[in-house]
C-alpha cells in the first residue's frame, strides 16, 4: 500500500512496492495519458513531474516516492487544455501519431518552469524524448512559442 499525491489529490494504491509509478498511474488510477514505450527510462514517453521536475516514471518504483511529493501527469497539466505548452502545440499542430506527445509536453512544461526562455541548446539538453514520427522541429518551435505565450501572461 502506498499513499501518493497525484494531480493534487491524495490517493491510496494497493500495489507491490516495486511497481513503477508508470503502471500505478496507468493501471491503478486509469490515467493512461502517460505512456509505456521502452520501460528502461530512455524514450521519455512516460514522463511525469515529481515536485515540478520531469522524471521517467517507468523506472521509478513507488517505494522511492515520499508521501508528500507532488506528482503531476498530463491529465493534471491544465484543466482546459490551455497550459502554454498545450496552446503552442495546438497552434503549431505539433503531434503526428501523438503517442510520445504527453511525455514530450511534460518535458517541455518542466523545462519552461525552470527556464522561462530556453535557448535551443537548453532544449537539446532537457528534451531527450524519442519521437519516431519526427515532430522535433515543431516541438522546438512549440517550446519557443510556449515561452512567449507564458511571458505574455497565457494561462499556466
Amino acid at each position: 500500500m502506498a499513499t501518493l499525491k497525484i494531480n493534487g489529490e491524495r490517493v491510496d494504491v494497493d500495489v507491490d512496492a516495486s511497481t513503477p509509478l508508470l503502471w500505478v498511474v496507468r493501471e491503478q488510477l486509469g490515467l493512461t495519458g502517460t505512456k509505456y514505450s521502452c520501460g528502461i527510462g530512455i524514450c521519455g514517453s512516460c514522463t511525469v513531474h515529481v515536485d515540478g521536475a520531469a522524471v521517467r516514471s517507468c523506472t521509478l518504483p513507488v517505494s522511492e516516492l515520499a508521501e508528500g511529493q507532488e506528482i503531476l501527469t498530463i491529465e493534471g497539466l491544465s484543466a482546459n487544455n490551455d497550459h502554454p505548452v498545450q496552446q503552442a502545440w495546438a497552434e503549431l499542430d505539433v503531434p503526428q501519431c501523438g503517442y510520445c506527445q504527453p511525455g514530450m509536453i511534460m518535458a517541455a512544461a518542466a523545462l519552461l518552469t525552470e527556464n522561462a526562455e530556453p535557448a535551443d541548446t537548453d532544449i537539446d539538453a532537457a528534451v531527450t524524448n524519442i519521437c519516431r514520427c519526427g515532430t522535433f522541429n515543431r516541438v522546438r518551435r512549440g517550446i519557443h512559442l510556449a515561452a512567449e505565450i507564458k511571458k505574455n501572461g497565457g494561462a499556466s
Partner: protein
Amino acid sequence: MSKARIAVSRREFIIRSTTAGAGFALGLTLPGLPRTALTAEGTGGTDWAADPEGPEINAWVVIQPDDTVVIRIARSEMGQGTLTGLAQLVAEELECDWSKVTTEYPTPGENLRRDRVWGSFSTGGSRGIRDSHAYVRKGGAVAREMLIQAAAEAWDVPKAECSAEASVVTHGPSGRTTTYGQVAKAAAKLWPPEHVELKDPEDWELIGKPVKRLDTLDKLNGKQIFGADLTLPGMLNAAVKACPVFTGKLDSFDDSKVRDKPGVRAVLAVGDNAVAVVADTWWQAKTALDALPVTWNKGPHADLSSAAIDEMLDEGLTSGEQVFVGNASGDAEQGLAGAAKTIEAVYAYPYQNHATMETMNATAVWTPERCEVWCPTQDGMAALEAAAEAAGLPIEQCDVHKIHLGGGFGRRGAFHDFVTQAVLIAKQLPDTPVKLLWTREEDMAHGHYHPITKCKLVGGLDESGDLTALKVRISGQSILASVRPEWMAEDGSDPVTFQGFHADGDHAISYGVANLLVEHAMRNPPVPPGFWRGVNINQNAIYLECFIDELAHAAGKDPLAFRRKLMAEHPKSLAVLETVAEKAGWGKPAANGAHRGLAVVKTFGSYVAACAEVSVSDGKVKVQRIVAATDPGYAVNPQQIEAQVEGSFVYGLSALFQGECTIENGAVVQSNFHDYPSMQIADMPDVEVIVMPSGGFWGGIGEPTIAVAAPAVLNAVFAATGQRLRRVPLKSVEL
C-alpha cells in the same frame, strides 16, 4: 417505379445493414459495455450503427440535426494526417462547414456487411489519399446533391435553382435558406444521383488549404486513447514471449513458479511458439512472465548469424543463380567494356526494426459465437481476417474496432501477429476481454524487419566524363517472397525490390542511361522481412544517389551538373532537384563551413529532392540544415505535407546513423532503445520544406522523402571528408 418506392427500398437496405451491425454489437456478452462509450473513447466516433434511423446520407457522410458533419474514414490515422486529408476531400465536394466536421472509423465488419462500400482499409504505400481520392470526393458530391435535392423538394422548387455552401442550401430566386442538419433526414431517404461532376481543381477551396489537423486536441491532454490504453469492464492483461529464435517453437514452461504470484490468472501457451501470462494488471503479468522458466525448441536456425547472412549476400553480388532483371536498356556489359573509365562500389543496408513508439497490442474478447478485437491497425480488413482465423469463427461473427495507432510505419499493415496472439489467448478465457501488450523487448525480437540487401554498382564514363553504362546488382532479401508471394511476377521476381530503378511508374529511375542493367539476386535469410516506411526505395536511393555522386566526382564534374545531363527526360525530378539546389545555395559556400550533398528520387508517385548541409568535427557528423522539395501533384494539406517531410528526416536519419538489427544465435541482438537508438531533438537539423505541387496527378507523401535523407547526407559527408561511407548505419564508423 416512383421515386418514393425507390427511396423506401434504399432506406430498407440501410436499416437492414445497420441493424445487423447494432445487433452484432449487442450480441456480445460484454455486460455494461455501451458501444457509444467504446467508440467515443476508442475510435472517436458516434453511435451510428446502433441508430438505423440516424441521418446517414451515404456511406461517407452523416449529418446530425445540429449540423455536425460526420465523415467516415476507412483508412487508418497513424500520424501521417490521412484522417484530416481524407475529410478535406469529402468536405470539399460536400460543401459543408469545415468547423462542424468530425470523423469516425467504420468497422471492417460493417464494411463486409455492406458489400465493402468503403473499399480498401489498407493504409500503406503512401496510398491513403492517392488511391481513394476519386471515390471519397464522389461520396461527398453525391451527399451534397441529395441534401440540395431534399431542400428543393421541401420548398417545391426546381433543384437547379438551389445551391449549397458551408452547410447551407440556398434557393437563389427566393433567397430562402436551410441548413444541412434540417434537411438531412429527408435527404437520407432519397436515392443517390447516378452521376455527379467532381469539381475542377481550380475551384477547390478546402483541398490545398493548410487546415489544422482534426485529431490534435486530444493528443495534448492524454485523452486520445491508443490500443495500449484501452480498458474494458472485467478486462485482464496479458504479457507474451515468443521463441526468440526465428521459426523456433515453445517446448515447455513451468507455471508452478509463477501461478501464485499476485494477480496471476493464467499461464498459457499461445500457438506453437509463445507463452503468455494473464493477470489482473499488465505489470503483474509482465513480472510473472519474466520469472517464468521457459524452454524453447529453437529449430533449424539456431545458429544463424549476421556473418552468415553477410556471406550469403556477398555470394549474390556476383552469382548467376536466382537472378532477376528489373530494368534493362542498351547493352550494359558492352557499354562498360567500351567505357573510358569504370567505377565500382559495393553498398550495404541492414535489417531495421520499425520501432513504433506504441508496442504491438490488441484487445480481444471471445465467446463460442463471437469474437471482437480492438487494435491499432493499418488495415482493418486484414486485422479482421486474422481475428476470424484465430477465433475459429466465420468472419461474419467477428469484428475489429480500429484505434488510432501509436505509429505504424508498415509494422501494423501486412502483419497482425499481435491480433492472432490476443485472440488465441482470449479464446482460452471465454467471455473475458484480454488486452495483450508486448514489451519493447518482444517488439524488438519479433519485428518484420526492413529487408537486408547489398548492392554492387559499376558505372562507365566516356571520354567527356558522361555516364554511358550502369550495371546494378542488388543481392538480398525479397519482401514479397515472404509476405505476399501472390504479388510476385510470373518469373518469380519481386518487382518491389526494384523501387527507384523501374523504367517507369510510381518508382521510376530519374536518369536516362543509354546502357543500363539492374538485377536482383534473391537471397532470403530466415529473418522475417516486412514493408518498412519507404520500403526498398530507402536503400535503393542510397545505392543509386551515392553512386551517381561517386561517378560525378570520378568524372571531375559537379554532382548537380552531372545529374542534370542525365535528366532531360525527367523534368519533374529535375525541377525538385534544381529547386533544392537553388534554395540551399548550391555552388556557393555554406554557412559555418558546412558541406553539401544532393539526392533526388521519384517514388510513391511523387518527386522529391533534398540538399543536406553537414559539418564533421571530432569524427562526428552534424547535419546542420536540409532543404527538401516535394512535388506530389496535388497537395491536399500543405502544412501536413511539411510535417511529413520534416518527420521523414527523423525516420530516415535515425535509420542512417543508428538503425541496425544484427543476428546472433538465430535471434535479434538488439532489445530496446539503448542498443537500437533513435534520433533525439539535439540531432535534428533545420529543415526547409518546399511543397511545389505541379498538378495533374496524386503522389504519396508519408514515405518519399525518407529516401533522400540518407543519400543527401552521405554525399555531404563525402564533400566534407573525402570519405565514401557505403555501409549503413554509420554509428560504428570512424571519420
